[in-house]
């Protein structure tokens, strides 16, 4: 059974002047397994955020079908968690409070409450339970958001280009963390990114997306055993595919 099916998804937004702008058109892709790491590589303004929000059912007005385990859904909280581009851990709550908030939504089950420590340790924040994320780094705040998302026990976590404002060192740590969680837990990740290096380091499958309007125009399977040795070969392939679409300059390529 496929984890996620996105079929012919199109989306318009209405401008202030009443004009309708097509943001996404005929977006089609499938995520097969429940423990995969998939990425969408696209230039800025291609509609990555809109697509992720549509998949998360945060934006419900769209054409086409989106199915999770073969079932169409139109409400949030049905097994998909969304981590936005900007830090989303709540500054008025400490690390523990941020995670417990999810449990407040789901009804404060005692068994789940005990797992808070487990999620905190999973994202590498043991010892920081009482810290407030307000003045912490983007990496710290991402870990809190990730722990909160994991505590909801979703099948799919959508990550919206979170790493671009982080230092190289923080990125490396988080790449390792995500891979580790992906291996340990039965949870899939769908990352939207503008960074070729990032998607190659993390994913087993990359969907290439172009803009005006946003649509998926290619797919690339990556054997993670060949990374980082063959990272240049994959980059060349991606370059070629984007060149064919006359969009090479829009993508941030550095290896």
């Amino acid at each position, binding site marked *: 059974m496929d984890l996620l099916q996105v079929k012919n998804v199109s989306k318009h937004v209405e401008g202030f002047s009443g004009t309708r702008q097509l943001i996404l058109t005929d977006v089609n892709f499938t995520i097969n397994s429940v423990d995969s790491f998939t990425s969408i590589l696209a230039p800025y303004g291609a509609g990555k955020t809109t697509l992720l*929000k549509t998949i*998360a*059912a*945060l934006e419900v007005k769209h054409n086409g079908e989106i199915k999770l385990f073969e079932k169409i859904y139109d*409400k*949030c*909280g*049905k097994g*998909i*968690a*969304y*981590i*936005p*581009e*900007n*830090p*989303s851990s*709540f*500054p*008025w709550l400490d690390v523990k409070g941020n995670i417990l*908030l*999810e449990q*407040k*939504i*789901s009804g404060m089950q005692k068994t789940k409450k005990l797992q808070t420590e487990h999620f905190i340790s999973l994202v590498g924040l043991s010892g920081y339970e009482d810290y*407030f994320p*307000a003045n912490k780094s983007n990496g710290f705040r991402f870990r809190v*958001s990730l722990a*909160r*998302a994991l505590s*909801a026990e979703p099948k799919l976590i*959508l990550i919206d280009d979170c790493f671009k404002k982080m230092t190289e060192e923080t990125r490396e740590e988080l790449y390792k963390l995500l891979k580790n969680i992906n291996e340990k837990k039965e949870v899939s990740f769908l990352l939207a990114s503008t960074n070729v290096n990032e998607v190659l380091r993390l994913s087993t499958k990359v969907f290439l997306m172009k803009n005006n309007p946003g649509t998926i125009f290619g797919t690339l399977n990556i054997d993670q055993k060949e990374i980082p040795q063959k990272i240049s070969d994959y980059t060349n392939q991606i370059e070629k595919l984007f060149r064919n679409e006359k969009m090479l300059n829009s993508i941030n390529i550095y290896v």
Partner: protein
Amino acid sequence: MTYKNSNKYLWIYPAVYFVLWIILFEFIFPVNKILPKPSIVFDSAGALWSDYNFLFNLLSTVGSVYISLLAAYFLVRLFLPAIKSTNSLFHFTLSLEWFSHYVPGLVLGLFLIYWFPDSEFIEFIFAFCTAFLSLVIKINKELKTLPDEYISSIRSLGADELFVTKNIVWKLIQPELFKHLFKLHLYLWLILIAFEFIKGGLGIGVIFKDALLYRDLSAIFLNALLTGVIIYLGTLLIKLAQKKFFNWRLN
């Protein structure tokens, strides 16, 4: 010394003015019609307390300002889901905001004084309406610029609209709401003093009115000085509440 650090030393200014006032008007210009002689002002404290009934008048104004401010704050918290979702309420407050740009709030006070000239309670109603509407208008503005990331992330976990409004939106608007509370606090003091001045009855504004009638410069000065101190203490109290309960900033 950086500009930020210099805020710590702002108390120096009133202290300097106070000392200057004593030096200038006690020793250099003891007889003048600009400001009263400090020793006369200190002597008139007893008269302000007994003749002008300072305590009751002060309690009346302080009660109206702070009870209405607290009531308005807790009521907007209670009605936040309605403020956020009710379109007609939104348009109603928008229209009031439009009026407030051109018609001073005190005009509403004049009508209230005309309709209920003998009611002491009307001052509180006036203060509450001013505070409540001001907070609703501010909240409406803030709702338009809420950072989406906090709301999207929690909604994706299954939080419904009411949960988001009560637990997230309310917290998100606090930093700006508190900034507004400082301004509103001062505005309420000014508008209530004017209201009391016009209406009569009880209040700090009534002391100003009586002192003006008696041409009592010392009473006017001391009343202004004490009112300033009370407003300053009120500001400190709001700052304390902000530090204790909302000591964080958004991104």
